[in-house]
């Protein structure tokens, strides 16, 4: 069927060690090669997946993951259920790490800048010799810049740098330094607190995007969903978001306090003040708190004073309140102070020790903030840095140009970049060493004191690229520098460190080899958690100003926030992430500036108009996205896009907001202040064709994503509260009578259809799904998970702008209540829309060739190879979940195609496709069950979306079995089926209504 990548091409690569690699993608007319192993790796069976546990390297949260490999190739990344951070879930960026591994823009080998200024290939040994030579010569002036790495690699770097007496700078564009500094000041601990969202019953977020980028999103999302999701006892935590802009996290809030940018600190203190007035203990900060009364804070924040009082009442009333923030976007010149203020609020409310824990931190040395890099830059500029290594960092992109990094790098005698692929920084270096991808290299992580995890290579290095892991390079470098590490490879070095750790931990699990193997198998080692310490606050060791910072320039405050898809921009060259519609704006492949509709009106611009955004430090042109979730006096731009030299999928997409920012150092934490300028917008008169999947953000009273107020739910009258009256029709005799529908999703097929294969289909499973909209956070991880599992192609900006996105899951987002003018309830409904596998599927009878039909086990099947492409089914699908292959989107450059899942057909042009309920997983489980001589279990099959969902909102199984989880979850007052009351499609997907605290105006359809 597919002329492009054939599933069985994977067999060809069986012996990657051997000749196989070159043969991938050879076209079908040739006789296909079968490449067996020379010696078989015992754990690999062709056609059967092998799983390896490792650590995700996409962000510092370091989730534990399992990687599924087939015939020696990684094809899917999934959360490691044993790992407390990921808890079995994974975010979109984690899934997309595969496209980093197989990225066609990875360096094919080490390159050195020649006389002509162009990069020339160079042999590895030569390159390493060159490196050690320069490091040697540089001696104490040698600088090693790295990002936050695992303990082992960090330690190795440390010792290498020390061996020549040089200096090491650890740089993270998204720095939690202010939080860390505030914690140090408040509790005398150089640590990042852990936040237990799961245990909170009231959550205040002062702009912390803890569901997207802040610290450990997946872990937070799980806890958040568990606490704010309604439970059997009809209890749910409440979430208030205090920030000038609603991030995705904010969109999940029950209430929004749209305060002015930077005023989070004073508001937090004012709430604390109000609490103290209500009898709480201000502790050492009592005097400080005294200074901040509600009215003053309210004035500064541009909100009514009552709001602060109400918030204080709520916070006091709550049994386990929790306040977090601010996020990176809120890091102004007073970032540390604001963090401190929020910690004070927690302390005053007594949350410390319950929902917020400050523990002794064994983390590798903290990411030193921008200040130290700034010093290095000045030294570089003065030519005092003869040699430096930049490992997996991209300051040339992620720092404001004003920092002068680019120019300074030019003054460095010999600059070396160790990175898997060329980026803006590497492009300026003299020598570039291709680093192995994290999925190809060894390493470890220690995200929490009590948590250790190993990173192991899940496959042979991708043969297209002659890469070496930084660890190995550094071990050899140390050797050349005369440092004796007692290790030939980084693997040995890691083992040594871990054997020390093993001894340190008192030799758990007997011999070290056993311990090591177990660590590799399970993927995580949990040691006795260090007791939570220092819940008592100390007096601050220095004075701080909590007031909102004075923003430079005039016009509207500019919020620069980390993208939930690209973080600081390192994910930008992964098509899946580019193609993933931003959870908030539903735009893909480009940048935008978010401005309030009223502001847009004043400016005389519409959504999609190009505007020139000018700050005192720079300007850029970007299309307007009118967003009701942002204050009228604020605009926001996401980081991550606007790359110039980062690969074919990133270059030229959108803009990099850093050009608008000054290189201001925040004191005392020394991080880069993101919130520091005001900007002016000026229409250019040009239009921009935005790549959006959003048709309308309104439900028009249709039975799509209803909600119910908590009180109503408790009283059990769900129909009145946003429910739908039973449909009635007028009949000749008897007047209005209810329309009869088969009520239960397990009723399939109709009696009349029980023939042939369908005779006993009353007893076969009917696969069904339940999605709890009260849990779904709209994070869109399921979208990418599905894309990765089901070989869903990406289409690119132009095609997506035409409305040809191929993703099988569309995360719909509807606005019910959203008002940026004053504090109040916010109600935004998320609806993961995928094929509903209707019992009465409108798409099936219209297909002329039976390409769409219903299987006896209740799947709405799409037979790709039978499809002729009339698109009638898509027209007739009321949910619009069928997508069409307009071109041969599946033909992607080598080796991206190595990621394709061998269990799923790769679709070629002219074919309709859609969610299959991961039928390949169902069949696999059936085959397994048959081999074991049993029937398939009701909860046995876990589709990719459910597996990935950090909020645990999705449940899949056989709904005919009353014991199945899907049946039990669906058996709920809140259960409804989208559009069912309107068109009686009898979907197999049961949604559970969102629950709100405020009244929901009834929807009558």
């Amino acid at each position: 069927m597919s002329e492009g990548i054939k599933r069985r091409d994977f067999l060809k690569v069986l012996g990657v060690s051997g000749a196989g690699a070159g043969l991938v993608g050879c076209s079908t007319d040739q006789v296909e090669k079968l490449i067996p192993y020379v010696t078989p790796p015992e754990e690999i069976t062709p056609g059967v997946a092998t799983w390896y546990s490792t650590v995700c390297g996409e962000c510092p949260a370091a989730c534990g993951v399992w990687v599924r490999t087939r015939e020696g190739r990684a094809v899917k990344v999934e959360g490691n259920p044993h790992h407390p951070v990921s808890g079995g879930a994974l975010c979109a960026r984690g899934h997309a790490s595969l496209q980093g591994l197989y990225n066609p823009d990875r360096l094919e080998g080490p390159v050195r800048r020649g006389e002509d200024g162009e990069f020339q290939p160079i042999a590895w040994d030569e390159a390493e010799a060159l490196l050690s030579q320069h490091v040697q010569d540089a001696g104490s002036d040698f600088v090693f810049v790295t990002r936050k790495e695992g303990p082992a690699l960090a330690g190795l770097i440390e010792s290498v740098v020390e061996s020549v007496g040089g200096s090491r700078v650890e740089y993270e564009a998204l720095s939690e330094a202010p939080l860390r500094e505030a914690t140090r000041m408040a509790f005398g601990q150089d640590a990042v607190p852990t936040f237990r969202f799961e245990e909170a019953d009231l959550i205040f977020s002062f702009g912390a995007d803890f569901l997207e980028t802040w610290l450990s999103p997946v872990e937070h999302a799980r806890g958040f969903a568990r606490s704010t999701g309604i439970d059997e006892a009809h209890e749910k935590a409440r979430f208030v978001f205090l920030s000038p802009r609603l991030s995705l996290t904010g969109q999940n809030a029950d209430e929004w306090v749209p305060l002015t940018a930077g005023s989070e600190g004073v508001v937090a203190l004012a709430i604390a003040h109000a609490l103290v007035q209500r009898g709480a203990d201000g502790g050492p900060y009592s005097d400080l708190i005294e200074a901040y009364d509600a009215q003053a804070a309210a004035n500064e924040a541009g909100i009514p004073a009552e709001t602060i009082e109400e918030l204080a009442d709520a916070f006091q009333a709550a049994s386990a309140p929790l306040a977090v923030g601010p996020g990176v976007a809120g890091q102004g010149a007073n970032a540390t102070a604001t963090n401190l203020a929020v910690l004070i609020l927690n302390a005053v409310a007594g949350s410390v020790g319950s929902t917020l824990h400050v523990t002794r931190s064994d983390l590798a040395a903290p990411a030193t903030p921008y200040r130290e890099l700034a010093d290095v830059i000045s030294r570089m500029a003065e030519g005092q840095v003869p040699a430096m290594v930049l490992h997996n960092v991209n300051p040339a992109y992620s720092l404001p140009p004003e920092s002068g990094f680019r120019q300074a790098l030019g003054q460095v005698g010999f600059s070396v970049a160790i990175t898997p692929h060329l980026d803006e920084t590497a492009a300026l270096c003299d020598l570039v060493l291709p680093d192995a991808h994290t999925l190809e290299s060894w390493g470890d992580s220690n995200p929490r004191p009590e948590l250790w995890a190993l990173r192991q290579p899940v496959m042979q290095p991708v043969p297209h690229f002659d890469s070496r892991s930084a660890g190995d390079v550094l071990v050899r470098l140390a050797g050349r520098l005369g440092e004796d590490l007692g290790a030939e490879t980084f693997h040995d070095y890691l083992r040594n460190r871990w054997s020390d750790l093993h001894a340190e931990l008192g030799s758990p699990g007997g011999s070290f080899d056993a311990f090591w193997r177990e660590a590799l198998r399970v993927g995580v080692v949990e040691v006795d958690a260090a007791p939570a310490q220092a819940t008592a606050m100390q007096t601050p060791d220095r004075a701080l100003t909590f007031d909102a910072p004075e923003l430079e320039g005039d016009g509207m405050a500019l919020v620069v926030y980390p993208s939930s898809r690209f973080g600081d921009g390192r994910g930008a060259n992964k098509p899946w992430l580019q193609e993933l519609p931003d959870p908030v704006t539903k735009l893909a492949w480009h940048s935008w500036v978010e401005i309030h509709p009223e502001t847009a009106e004043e400016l005389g611009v519409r959504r999609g108009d190009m505007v020139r955004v000018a700050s005192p430090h720079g300007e850029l042109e970007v299309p307007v996205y009118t967003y009701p979730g942002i204050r009228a006096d604020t605009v926001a731009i996401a980081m991550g896009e606007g790359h110039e030299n980062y690969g074919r999928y990133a270059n030229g997409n959108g803009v990099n907001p850093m050009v608008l920012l000054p290189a201001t150092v925040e004191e005392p934490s020394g991080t880069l202040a993101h919130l520091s300028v005001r900007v002016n917008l000026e229409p250019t008169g040009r239009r921009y064709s935005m790549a959006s999947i959003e048709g309308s953000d309104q439900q028009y009273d249709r039975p799509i994503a209803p909600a119910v107020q908590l009180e109503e739910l408790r009283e059990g009258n769900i129909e009145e509260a946003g429910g739908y009256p039973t449909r009635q029709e007028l009949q000749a005799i008897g007047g209005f009578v209810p329309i009869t529908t088969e009520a239960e999703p397990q009723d399939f097929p109709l009696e009349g259809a029980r023939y042939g294969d369908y005779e006993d289909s009353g007893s076969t499973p009917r696969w069904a799904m339940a999605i709890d909209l009260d849990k779904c956070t709209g994070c869109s991880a399921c979208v990418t998970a599905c894309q990765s599992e089901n070989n869903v192609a990406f289409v690119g900006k132009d095609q997506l702008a035409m409305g040809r996105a191929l993703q099988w899951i569309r995360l719909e987002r509807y606005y019910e209540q959203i008002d940026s003018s004053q504090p109040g309830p916010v109600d935004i409904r998320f609806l993961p829309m995928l094929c509903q596998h209707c019992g009465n599927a409108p798409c099936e009878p219209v297909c002329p060739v039976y390409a769409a039909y219903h299987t006896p086990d209740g799947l709405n099947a799409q037979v790709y190879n039978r499809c002729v492409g009339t698109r009638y089914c898509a027209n007739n699908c009321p949910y619009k979940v069928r997508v069409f292959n307009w071109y041969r989107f599946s033909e992607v450059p080598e080796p991206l195609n190595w990621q394709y899942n061998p269990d799923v057909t790769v679709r070629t042009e002219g074919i309709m496709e859609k969610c299959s309920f991961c039928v390949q997983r169902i069949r696999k489980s059936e085959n397994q069950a048959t081999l074991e001589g049993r029937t398939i279990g009701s909860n046995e099959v876990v589709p990719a979306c459910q597996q990935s969902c950090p909020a645990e909102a999705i449940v899949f199984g056989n709904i005919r079995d009353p014991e199945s989880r899907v049946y039990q979850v669906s058996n709920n007052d809140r259960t409804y089926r989208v559009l069912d009351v309107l068109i009686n499609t009898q979907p197999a997907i049961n949604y559970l209504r969102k629950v709100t605290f405020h009244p929901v105006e009834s929807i009558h359809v």
Partner: protein
Amino acid sequence: MKKPWYIAMVAALAALGSLAFLQGQTVDEDVDTSDAAQVNIGPEGQPIAFPHNRHAGDLQLDCQFCHFSAERSSSAGIPPVATCMGCHTFVAGTERQEEVAKLRGFWERGEAIPWNRIYKVSDHVSFPHMRHVSAGLECQECHGPVEEIGVIQEVQQPLTMGWCLNCHIEQGATRDCTACHY
């Protein structure tokens, strides 16, 4: 009067009908036969002239001795060179020892043997070997009398959908499309 012309007319119609039917009986071009029946490599096609009749026939080796994963995986598995060397380290072969020499060459060079694939269904078909093995199907049902053939160079069966279906219907196995197509 002049009857022949309309007799001819009827005959022509009949001819057309039967033509359509015969066309139906033959394999359609959309069944990706380029991967299936049509594969026919030359006499020197396989890198090593491996005599199935010698191993599976004379020596009575069990198919799954070499195709090790047939009973537990959807793919039957191609024996690693090590498996061959298990015997051929000692057995130099009776006739055509040069072929065994080739094998040893591969082994010494640590190279994989680039066998040419003969049996292959289209890419939109998933064929779980284990289901068929566990159902007690003989390998020969699909692969023909391998134990009598020397160097396998062409498939013995059409490997087309109709051919699969006939067996599925006879055996009372499922006819559901998504059993094979997904």
